[in-house]
């Protein structure tokens, strides 16, 4: 392996060097006397001294070394190192908590350095997973050690962590909010899937519907979400005041009803567009042969057109779902509930850790859904065709 000819892995190398700079140059943690006052930031050397800080640079330099000579064996070592460093991040927080926090009201905040390093290390993980051609499943399994380390540190040493404090103050509420969020997204995506597929089928049959439909959906998409909630407020309030069974259902100008309507409205365009394009794009020669062989219209649709279109339709569902997860956060503004509630509460109280408590799970949910539906699309692409 001495005679490895390929040049340095530039991606991994730059990720490593930028991450090292962030690690040593930015505050890794901050400590505040209580929830309200702004905290003081601490760089690595301010926590463990200049000598210790230099020592922490060593694994980074090793990583850079592996990136410089990216033989397969080196990349495997780099992978192990990246996973270890990810697992060490919670331990660093624990160490900081133990050394820096003395008062019971004091809180430990996660600094820009840790966030930056976390982000860059995850990118490095993706790069290594691609280079080493590891399976999707193994890629996910690599996250288990860091997660285990985080869980252990939270349980033992991270009592003062601000994010943890915010969570412990509302753990019941938190689970409820996740549930509401998922319910809103699920119902909105489900409804727009049913409506969207129906609309796409109608558009394929009647060209008139196609023009009008796309025109309307495109227009809908250009209205900012807050404005759309506002626009829905008056008519829904009127409906709930005048139609008894609607108000009995809980429909009103604010709350889940306008949120759901708006979410479905925004979700329709990507859903319809992908479904329509997917169904249209099936090779006409294949359809011609299918009909020429004596398949009925229904058989052509179910056995040929739909299965061939399915990966692109799933892609539409994926885009729609990820978009809806983000939009649902905004829906908290009109009292629809969900994780957005924490974000807006946090903004109101200038408590950034509360904002994070809402924003982080939204980010994670979006990533998770993206990965799951992406994997499903791959599985459904039969024979790896096209």
């Amino acid at each position: 392996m001495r005679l490895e000819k390929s040049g340095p892995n530039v991606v991994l190398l730059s990720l490593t060097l930028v991450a090292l700079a962030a690690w040593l140059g930015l505050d890794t943690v901050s400590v505040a006397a209580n929830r309200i006052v702004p905290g003081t930031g601490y760089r690595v050397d301010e926590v463990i001294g200049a000598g210790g800080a230099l020592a922490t640079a060593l694994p980074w330099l090793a990583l850079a070394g592996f990136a410089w000579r990216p033989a397969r064996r080196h990349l495997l070592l780099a992978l192990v190192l990246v996973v270890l460093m990810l697992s060490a991040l919670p331990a660093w927080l624990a160490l900081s908590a133990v050394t820096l926090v003395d008062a019971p009201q004091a809180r430990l905040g996660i600094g820009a350095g840790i966030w930056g390093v976390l982000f860059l290390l995850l990118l490095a993980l993706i790069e290594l997973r691609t280079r080493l051609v590891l399976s999707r499943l193994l890629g996910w399994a690599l996250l288990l050690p860091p997660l285990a380390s985080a869980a252990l540190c939270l349980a033992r040493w991270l009592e003062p962590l601000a994010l943890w404090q915010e969570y412990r103050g509302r753990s019941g509420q938190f689970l409820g909010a996740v549930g509401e969020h998922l319910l809103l997204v699920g119902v909105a995506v489900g409804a727009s899937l049913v409506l969207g597929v129906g609309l796409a089928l109608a558009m394929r049959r009647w060209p008139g519907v196609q023009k009008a439909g796309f025109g309307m959906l495109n227009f809908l998409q250009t209205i900012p979400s807050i404005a759309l909630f506002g626009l829905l407020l008056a008519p829904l309030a009127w409906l709930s005041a005048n139609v008894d069974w609607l108000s009995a259902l809980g429909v009103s100008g604010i709350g889940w009803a306008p949120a759901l309507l708006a979410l479905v409205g925004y979700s329709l365009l990507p859903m319809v567009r992908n479904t329509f394009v997917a169904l249209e794009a099936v090779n006409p020669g294949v359809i011609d042969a299918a009909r020429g062989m004596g398949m009925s219209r229904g058989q052509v649709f179910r056995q040929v057109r739909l299965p061939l279109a399915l990966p692109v339709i799933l892609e539409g569902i994926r885009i729609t779902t990820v978009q809806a997860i983000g939009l649902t956060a905004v829906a908290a503004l009109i009292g629809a509930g969900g994780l957005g509630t924490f974000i807006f509460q946090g903004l109101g109280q200038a408590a950034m850790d509360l904002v994070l408590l809402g924003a982080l799970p939204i980010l994670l949910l979006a990533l998770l859904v993206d990965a799951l539906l992406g994997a499903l699309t791959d599985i459904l692409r039969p024979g790896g065709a096209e």
Partner: protein
Amino acid sequence: MIDLIHVTKRFGDAVAVDDISLSVARGELCVLVGTSGCGKSTTLRMINRLIEHSEGEIHIDDQQIRAFREETLRRRMGYAIQSTGLFPHWTVARNIGLVPRLLKWPKAKVQARVEELMALLGLAMEAFAGKYPHQLSGGQAQRVGVARALAADPDILLMDEPFGALDPITRQSLQDELRELQSRLHKTIVFVTHDMDEALRLADHLVVMHQGRIVQQGRPLALLREPADGFVESLLGGEDRGLKEAALLPVSQRMLPLGPRLLARERIGQHASLREALSVMLWRHAERLTVVDDDDLPVGELSLRRLVGVRSDE
């Protein structure tokens, strides 16, 4: 077997096929040939009702095609097209078994039929049955397309430029295979092409179309000898007609029995065409060839004068 009687097809105001009448006898291979856009595909697709004709009548076995359900009609006819139209999400074996499954044959019978057809078209079962269409070469894919068209053993085969996208060598070997298959299976075939060499090589009955009309039809040799007009003549190759005709005639038709003279050094098989014989003469600078049978035994001789059709030889 197939009769088109004064059939016309209009798309809006445009007339794509204009009052054509055509009969294809059972077991005959009928080729529709003409420049692109002359209405060949439209004619073919009217026979299996992928396109409905506007006027006239089309009969299969003396029954109007409109008397059948569309699907029933199509399942009786094989259909092969230039783009193959193989289903990309199905394996080769599943593609071939399509029509038998539509006809609800029992599973074991479908499986047996698929194996039989793959053998017939030279597709090794182990190598190809589980492959997907995108893993095949153009020639292999087209073989699968033909196997699929033959699957339910239909009497009628409709083929729309099936070899049009292949390289010349693959195309020629598939043409030879089709002729060979046809000599065993005796299907009634309507074959569309714009390639006159292909048409002449395959046709029992040749139909020349131009601007939606049939300008001439008959046996290929008859058309070569007496083209109806300048268009047919130019389509048949103008000055090249002599070579095209020679390509249709076997050496055995012009050879003489072995005479008292020494055998000529250059040899030619008795099933070769006169065109091939002429080529050998040109290439070898030989005026006489010894004609040999399949076992390479001399059976006659062919002189240049005989080849070009001069009656007496001395």
